[in-house]
């Protein structure tokens, strides 16, 4: 009984996160300025981490968490590099 409720909540949360990714991609497409679009890219990467964690909850398999770890680290580094590029107009 409780397992069914939990699985329903996780599936519902998965669909909500898909909708949030669509909203964030729309903000990247129609952003006001470059920093706004960078925030959109950063939040898309964060929401993909959330989707991978939800897939781990659905399949009860921890391999998705490793993928989420790599994706979180890559998103962090790329956002930092792009923010520095926007601020200084050079990467290094």
């Amino acid at each position, binding site marked *: 009984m*409780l*397992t069914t*409720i*939990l699985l329903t*909540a*996780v599936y*519902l*949360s998965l669909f*909500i*996160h898909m909708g*949030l990714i669509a*909203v*964030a991609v729309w*903000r990247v497409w129609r952003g006001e*300025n*470059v*920093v*706004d679009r*960078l*925030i*959109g890219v*950063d*939040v898309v990467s*964060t*929401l993909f*981490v*959330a989707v991978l*964690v*939800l897939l*781990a*909850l659905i399949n*009860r*398999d*921890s391999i998705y*968490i*490793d993928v*989420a*770890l790599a994706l*979180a*680290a890559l*998103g*962090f580094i790329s*956002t*930092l590099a792009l*923010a*520095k590029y*926007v*601020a*200084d107009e050079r990467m290094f």
Partner: protein
Amino acid sequence: MMETILQLVALTAVILGTFFSVVGMVGFVRLPDVYTRLHAVGKVGVFGVVLLLIAAAAWTPLGWGRAILLIVLLMVAGPVTAHALASAAFRIGLHLKQPVRDDLRDV
């Protein structure tokens, strides 16, 4: 009994995390300038994903080790990214909309 408690923890964490993600994205769409949007988007990274990870650690055969590693990574990465993006926005000359007080106006 233990199974039931872990399932209740996971259910509460999933619902709360989804709520924080939705609130953060509503703020991202509705707020007026870059700095306030950055403030709203911070909630998605620090509260939304961390609560989902607590649910995953409670209900999947994952163990707390990797979950805590990912939680620490997200909690370090969120403020650092927000700071870098706000600094970039200030450097290219974006200003606050309707500021009550702007200490960096003449810098």
